[in-house]
């Protein structure tokens, strides 16, 4: 299967994503500069982390106007798989592809550390290959990862099982103490109602190979690959 990784001025996790997809998992992957208006022949798009456009105005708010994001919106509307990581999650929220917004961490600190993630549902192309009950240990690195939405949206997220990952302690309990940024319901990642677009603040691409002695993040990419292999690419 073929991946595209977007590249905005200020992206800085793009090469890590390419490395994992291409060198670790062996799938053809290309970088797409923000000025490209055509995605080409791809099965899934990754919107990587970083500080696109210097985080000006609000994180992710400028990137959504780039030509490549118009193509990503069309791709997503047709059912194409899109995963936003960290700044990519912020961009997808600003673009209206995911509900809610990411605001300043409640501690006001930039948090760069490992967290444990409870997988709230395996019913998504992003989590389907994760064994039941498996707790993921993956790093975060963000100053604005505090997920917020209004009460009605939160209710819908829960009712439709759109919450994919929640910050938990090492026993898998979702507690306030384990919440690194103040996110509602300890939300670390969500998907849209159609379940083909997801965003997450933790960085699976930074924990995806045995050589690093941590590869829980790999399960998320393997979920994507498992979902795409049996099915034809979206039209």
């Amino acid at each position: 299967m073929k991946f595209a990784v977007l590249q905005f001025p200020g992206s800085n996790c793009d090469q890590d994503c390419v490395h994992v997809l291409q060198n670790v998992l062996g799938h053809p992957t290309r970088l797409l500069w923000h000025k490209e208006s055509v995605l080409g022949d791809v099965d899934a798009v990754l919107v990587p982390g970083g500080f696109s456009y210097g985080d000006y105005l609000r994180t992710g708010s400028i990137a959504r106007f780039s030509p490549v994001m118009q193509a990503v919106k069309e791709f997503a509307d047709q059912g194409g798989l899109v995963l936003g990581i960290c700044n990519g999650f912020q961009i997808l929220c600003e673009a209206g592809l995911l509900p809610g917004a990411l605001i300043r961490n409640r501690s006001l600190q930039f948090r760069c550390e490992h967290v444990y993630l409870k997988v709230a549902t395996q019913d998504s192309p992003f989590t389907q290959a994760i064994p039941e009950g498996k707790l993921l240990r993956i790093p975060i690195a963000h100053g604005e990862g505090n997920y917020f939405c209004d009460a009605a949206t939160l209710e819908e997220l829960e009712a439709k099982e759109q919450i994919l990952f929640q910050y938990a302690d090492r026993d898998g309990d979702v507690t306030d103490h384990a919440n690194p940024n103040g996110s509602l319901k300890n939300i670390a990642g969500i998907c849209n109602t159609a379940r083909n677009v997801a965003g997450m603040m933790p960085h699976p691409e930074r924990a995806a190979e045995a050589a690093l002695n941590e590869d829980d993040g790999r399960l998320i990419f393997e979920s994507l690959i498992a979902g795409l292999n049996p099915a034809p690419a979206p039209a």
Partner: protein
Amino acid sequence: MKAKVIITPKPEVLDPQGKTVQTALEHMGCTGVGEVRVGKYIEIEMDGDADTVKAKLSEYADKFLANPNIEDYRLKLED
């Protein structure tokens, strides 16, 4: 004319920055300080009469300058 857009976090959104500024003011010995909210202020030079500018700016603010999920805004026009 000069248009001013004042953007503030919605009342229901936690504003840790405002909270920290409030605490710092208290540490400075300032008395009578209540809740502090930190927002953004944008100045834009615009052509057109007040009604047109207001209509256009509202659209720009709804779509881009403010995020309706987390922020409110108000407009002020200056000749």
